[in-house]
């Protein structure tokens, strides 16, 4: 799946977690802009892992701070 298609899928998946309807750009941060707490992160990561059939380990999550980095990581993890 290319970056655009991956981004579109992630866009669908994040909607229920984006409670305040924050506008999403590649620079949107999860902790700061979206105010995700650790529980939300776990549920959101699980949703992405299940959709793309991948693992995003905690080690990899630590490197992902914004929306663009997440899309890049998922593109890469799909191989």
């Amino acid at each position, binding site marked *: 799946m290319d970056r655009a298609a991956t981004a579109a899928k992630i866009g669908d998946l994040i909607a229920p977690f984006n409670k305040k309807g924050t506008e999403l750009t590649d620079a949107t941060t999860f902790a700061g802009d979206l105010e995700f*707490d650790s529980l939300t992160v776990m549920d959101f990561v699980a949703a992405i*892992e299940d959709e793309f059939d991948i693992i995003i*380990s*905690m080690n990899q999550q630590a490197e992902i701070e914004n929306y663009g980095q997440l899309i890049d990581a998922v593109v890469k993890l799909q191989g």
Partner: protein
Amino acid sequence: MTDLFSKFDPLIEQRRALLSTGLTDPFNLVMEKVVSPTEAICNGRKTILLGTYNYMGMTFDPDVIEAGKQALDDFGSGTTGSRVLNGTYAGHRLVEEALKEFYAMDHAMVFSTGYQANLGIISTIAGKGDYVVLDIDSHASIWDGCKMGDAEVVPFKHNDIEAMEKRLKRIPEGAGKLVILEGVYSMLGDIAPLKEMIRIAKENGAMVLVDEAHSMGFIGPNGRGVAEDQGVLDQVDFVIGTFSKSVGTVGGFCVSNHPKFEIMRLVCRPYVFTASLPPSVVHTAATSIRKLMHAGNKRAHLWENSKVLHQGLRDAGFKLGTETPQSAIIAVIMPDLERGAAMWEALLHEGLYVNLARPPATPAGMTLLRCSLCAEHTAEQVQTIIGMFKRAAAAVGILD
């Protein structure tokens, strides 16, 4: 200069706000005198202890105390050395023999604390390139062990068998896999479906580590824990446990049937680079563990206490962490930290000590009043405790 302490400002402010209301600091209580496994003097007041993890009440057992005193006389106050240098005394071997017998396993390795047992074993066996699959509600010592070992860490939703299986199946072929589970999860007192989880872990080629800290001595026909109770202990590669709960002193351990297990004594840094337990501690632990092998009556009484308290608090209208009593931990869920702290203080004024637990130690941001029962609590004490909860709740307005 950046003050490295500025990251703690939100917590400092939260504490200041809470204590400015005149509340007793729930994290600074002093036990002035300890009367028995179930009673102490706090702030000059006789207090029933309901938050000690002293499940089997071994802390004042006469044989245990005597073994400790004798060891002080015979071996001195401390070893001043590592297990691999001058710190292995007769007592360390004695307690490892007792553990091997207690669990009917080939190898036992004793650490200076339970925290170090998890830290040491996990970080040593799961290294760079290996995968650790673990429950999201795992204890801090498990998380810290994962971080120190540098393995890929893959958490799954609490007790969710399907979520665990999916993650195991996604791990790249050929990678080393370790599944980490707990018998009893200490925050809510719920148990894990180990039978299913361990079967799936094995089907997917993973080794299995189970932390039985909160079940040893109490759960299972021989008190070996939840894995024994569910008939799967023989499938567990590593059992982690502690001396600071049912055994009644301090220390941690790992028991295993792995044929190469003894090499851990040379490669496990939290075992090598710290002083071993004092002789009095290992002798009290060995004596206690041997007595726990024959503690069937105490186990039965502890179950009875847990059931009665669970039912009593439920009937009184409290929201509890589990629908049914699953262990000797009963977690009472509070609406928020402020009212939880107020309820904790009201209970202390009634003469009852419980643990106030709050995020990040708790799951889902909950504030809990965590109760852990003891086999030495009398049936009468349990009824007194239920009455104290009702009066404190009325005073604070928790059940309205």
